[in-house]
């Protein structure tokens, strides 16, 4: 009797946990997701907008684990909702960028010819501008806010996904199983979905994890400049920006949002490195 084939997912998880970067990254990302989820469900120690006028700029104590800000709002609660907000921006923007990038990359790579040329030249245009500059222009066109941040980051990272998705398509489409599928009378759309796409997944998954870390950084940068989430909505970038000038008397206002950004970025980055080691042995990361 044939044994049921082992599902790939638990296997991947096991190998990821055995990888040093992967396990640390997964731990940080899980922690971040949990905190973000609690923030999103308002399971915070205090309501994030609740002001305690008598307890402004309190250092971390048992009552306020990470201190309070200029308005006496609980920093820990605001960080938790900030995690939810930046995670939301990162997930949506990367999801859009992945979908669009995969569409442009696989279709242009598969069809080839003029279409491929046009799509790739358009992507070159996007590459010639620094990501933040492009994001700034987009945000200024659409007006600051969370939704425009999502859109700006998605547009900025789409070309990267298009490139990543296209490369494997170019090699896979010449393979014999694709020719065989075509001989069997499969339509182009079916070939792309059934045979080409699965082969582009490994590099894309790695890219998604790395893009999530860039997206966190870009979101924090835009909101630091006052173009992302608008106060009083808590966001790590805004909190860090607000700490300027009062950090001398209340350093915790700078330290904790800073740490939050660093750990979040680090988590997705390490997870991406780990996934690359596990999924794609040809693309070794810097660890040998």
């Amino acid at each position, binding site marked *: 009797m044939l044994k049921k084939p082992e599902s790939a997912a638990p296997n991947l998880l096991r190998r990821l946990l055995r990888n040093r970067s992967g396990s640390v990254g997964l731990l940080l990302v899980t922690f971040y997701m949990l905190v973000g989820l609690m923030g999103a469900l308002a399971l915070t120690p205090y309501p994030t907008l609740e002001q305690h006028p008598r307890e402004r700029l309190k250092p971390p104590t048992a009552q306020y684990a990470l201190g309070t800000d200029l308005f006496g709002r609980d920093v820990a609660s605001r960080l938790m909702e900030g995690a939810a907000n930046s995670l939301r921006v990162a997930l949506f923007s990367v999801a859009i960028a992945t979908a669009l990038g995969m569409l442009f990359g696989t279709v242009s790579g598969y069809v080839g010819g003029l279409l491929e040329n046009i799509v790739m*030249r*358009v992507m*070159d*245009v*996007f590459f*010639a*501008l*620094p990501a*933040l*500059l492009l994001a*700034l*222009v*987009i945000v*200024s*066109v659409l*007006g600051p806010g969370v939704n425009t941040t999502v859109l700006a980051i998605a547009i900025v990272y789409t070309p990267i996904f298009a490139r990543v998705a296209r490369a494997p398509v170019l090699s896979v489409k010449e393979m014999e199983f694709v020719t065989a599928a075509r001989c069997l009378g499969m339509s182009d759309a079916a070939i792309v979905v059934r045979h080409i796409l699965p082969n582009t997944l490994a590099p894309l998954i790695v890219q998604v994890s790395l893009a999530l*870390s860039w997206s966190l*950084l870009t979101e*924090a*940068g835009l909101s*630091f*400049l006052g173009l992302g989430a608008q106060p009083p909505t808590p966001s790590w*970038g805004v909190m*860090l*920006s607000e*700490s*300027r000038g009062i*950090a*001398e008397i209340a*350093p915790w206002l*700078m330290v904790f949002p*800073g740490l939050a*950004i*660093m*750990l979040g*970025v*680090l988590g997705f*980055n*390490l997870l991406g490195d780990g996934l690359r080691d596990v999924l794609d042995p040809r693309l*070794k*990361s*810097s*660890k*040998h």
Partner: protein
Amino acid sequence: MRSFNNVMIRYLAGRAIAFIPILLGVSILIFSAIRLVPGNAIVAMLGTEAGMLTETQRQSLEAYFGLDKPPIEQYFIWLSGVVRGDLGLSARFGQPVLQVILSRFPVTLQLALMAMAIALTIGIPIGVLSAVKHNSFIDLVGRLLALLGLAMPGFLLGTLIIYVLSVYFRILPNSGDFVTFADNPSRNLSQMIFPAITLGFSFSASVMRTTRSAMLEVLGQDYLRTARSKGLTEQVVIRRHALRNALIPIVTIVGVEMGYLLGGTVIIEEIFALPGIGRLVFNAISQRDYALVQGIALFVAFNFVVINLIADLIYAAIDPRISYAKET
């Protein structure tokens, strides 16, 4: 045999022609994006004072800045100016855009060069050491530093540096007016060093990672064993044989990063109050100075493609196997 110069010039000309569609694309992209901005440019420019304008005054201002024509016509008028080296007039400064950009560019260029120097001074030696003493304590420290640099955005490091300087050293960097290097070198350097460290540190992380993995790749090659076995000292082997071959990916990443640095580092210039391209574009965007934003975007993209070209030339200088001469 054709002379080297001849071949090089033909290669450069070919590359330059290939840039034109990219630059055109950037100009169309930015032009159409900016035209989508809600609100009137004159109102955005003058703020509340715009309400005091009479209809005739408003119309003559629009005519002056060419805003009274349909967008497509505006684009072609602008483009024909660009070809002649005229990027239009900045509504905010009342000066030619190119002049405004060039007056700010030295600050950004100096910052980028200083940051690059810092990044390479830190990144390359640590990267080489990390690879040579693979899996040692130095390697661990180097990799931790690289991770830190990767996860620490410039605005965070910049904020931290300002905090430490003001609290522990009682220095407020960049309080007061910015001075150029030509006017007062020591004061200029004291204003530039901290932003340069901020940028340089973040960038040194990627230089270090790239150097390390390129060196690890090279160190396993046969020709290094040959070099060692013919009695060369380890130092010569590493410097002349290994590092030289590892330089190509380093040049690539330096090129990409330099292109971005010259595009102005909006956040760092904002934090440290440096009057460079980054702050210029940030202000131009919020003030809807159309012509200026367009001009800067084109200027930045132009820098980016030129630097890519320079990187290509450096490849050829490092690696004699790379030749841009077409086989005949």
